[in-house]
């Protein structure tokens, strides 16, 4: 199976070859490694060997939004099979994704909405100030774009998962 892993702007091509006798060969951008990965805990903790390099790894989240922690580094990435990726690119044009919706990650109260529809925003820009646990938290944009709609008003209470702002 072939996969494309996106780490920020960076793309890494991975091919997994399930060999006979239980050997597993992984090609990373064409370079072959003997790989072995076994569980080291419950659902998220693994021990990975790439040739002789050893890693204890936690892998959390769905393929499209995965967080990997190894050797004290946390790396955010997305995994897609080459097949799915090609189909998506054909459908939506060059790497385009649908509109992004920023959702609340916690229950709280909207203190202030900082943007309005039509505003240009950059990645990391504060969109909304949300009060939770007596602290005012800035909810920031996960990507650059234009604000398509704002779903909340000042003073409104939100729960986990409520949409806050849609970008296009």
């Amino acid at each position, binding site marked *: 199976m072939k996969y494309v892993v996106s780490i920020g702007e960076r793309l890494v091509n991975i091919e997994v070859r399930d060999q006979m006798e239980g050997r597993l060969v992984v090609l990373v951008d064409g370079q072959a490694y003997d790989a072995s990965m*076994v569980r080291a805990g419950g659902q998220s903790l693994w021990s990975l060997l790439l040739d002789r390099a050893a890693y204890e790894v936690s892998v959390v989240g769905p393929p499209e939004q995965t967080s*990997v922690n190894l050797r004290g580094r946390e790396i955010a990435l997305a995994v897609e099979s080459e097949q799915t990726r090609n189909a998506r690119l054909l459908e939506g044009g060059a790497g385009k994704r649908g509109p992004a919706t920023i959702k609340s990650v916690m229950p709280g109260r909207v203190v202030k909405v900082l943007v309005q529809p039509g505003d240009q925003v950059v990645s990391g820009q504060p969109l909304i100030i949300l009060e939770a646990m007596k602290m005012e938290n800035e909810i920031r944009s996960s990507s650059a774009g234009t604000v398509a709609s704002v779903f909340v008003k000042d003073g409104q209470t939100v729960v986990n998962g409520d949409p806050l702002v849609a970008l296009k």
Partner: protein
Amino acid sequence: MAASNRPLFRKILVANRGEIAVRVIRAAHELGIATVAVFSEVDRKSLHVRYADEAIDLGPPEPSRSYLDQGKILEAAKAVGADAIHPGYGFLSENEDFAAACRAASVVFIGPSPEVIAGMGDKIRARATMKAAGVPIVPGQDGIQRETLLASAKAVGYPLMLKASAGGGGKGIRAVREESELVSAFERAQGEAMTAFGDGTVYLERLIERPHHIEIQIFGDRHGNYVHLFERECSVQRRHQKIIEESPSPFMTEALRASMGKAAVDAARAMKYEGAGTVEFLVDDRRNFYFLEVNTRLQVEHPVTEMVTGIDLVREQIRVAAGLPLSFRQSDLAQKGHAIEARICAEDPDQGFVPSIGFIRDLALPGGPGIRLDSALATGLEVSLYYDSLLAKLIAWGRDREEAMVRLRQALAEFKIADLKSNIAYLGRVLRNSEFVSGVYDTGLLTRMPTPNPDESLLHAAAVAAVLAHHGHDRATLAPSAGQSAATSDPWKLDGRRRGLRGGA
């Protein structure tokens, strides 16, 4: 020392949760004192409940109806026959009404008197007390009204800080660089103070540019003994909250330590301070120091002091609260080696440190020489939004700063919490940051920290790990083996040796 083998108290009720409740229970048990935990319904599985001798259900998770409910806690103490209450930090630890209610109920409150708590909790009164005791304070103005705000600000001079009089924990604080920001900052600070403390009183202080946040641990007893246990450097802060603390401070000189130590002991004596406390100072780049506030409780970062002095501060708190004199004099104390603490929090550093919630499904805990973990972590625990995001404190001791740093870095690399977003990797970045490593840093450190650029080999390994984890999972969901539940089947089907074994069974 106590004349008999009778314990100092019969039973201590710990009016707190999380790692600090565990810390207090340990100290009490070591002194032969029985412990009582209290818990809200979401904390039923927590470590402090498991470690205590007795545990009492306080009911709903909201702090106001559980850990902050003075009536319920005093009632619990009465029901179990506890003769002392340790408040930990946060919650009721700096609440003078609670300390007074304990006194009225003939239960010892392990901490200073209600009068001292009240005097220091009101930041405006505290500044006046310190000024009278000859301790230097930051130039500023209180009695701030909306109408006179502009004039008061002009008198203090820009840049300045707006602070809540009832404040603490970084709440109700705003920096103001110029007049145009003043009114909105005032409203935000006042609003936040009102929500957090029920008191919207704010005051102005001149902003000390690029300050060091250095605090002195103090201890007093009812026999008139007052000592300090040196400094903690707390300049690594985000949103005015500390995340890394160390002792000794790399910024400290012998002369500065002596004068700050003396000021702190003078302050303790002026307050007739009983128990453990902390005098916080701001130190400017020319090593002038100014009184900031007194925390009338055990600090989160107390372990770094314990590691370099060898004194168990919680044990000493209990002894002093029982009426014993301090077990050490100033001349007995010395700083040995270096200790650094990192606060492990459930939060997302990429999203402006918003608190994260979820289940702890997997845990890899660090160890090794000089490593101490004060933790409330356990697999199966749920982290909710009801309480502070602090999960654990990782402390490294070394003979010098370099050794403490490399130990902490190694321990952070071993430390993994899944599936909860935490700041572990972020703390590792701080520990590798050249400014932090050099020891020449101030409270602006984190705002200047560059984004990381992991090695190519790590990116490759991460990509492979993600693919294999998801790849194996895909197969299991596409072709589940008949009769196997998701919980018992290992979705990982690619490891040949294990497959071989299973096939042979």
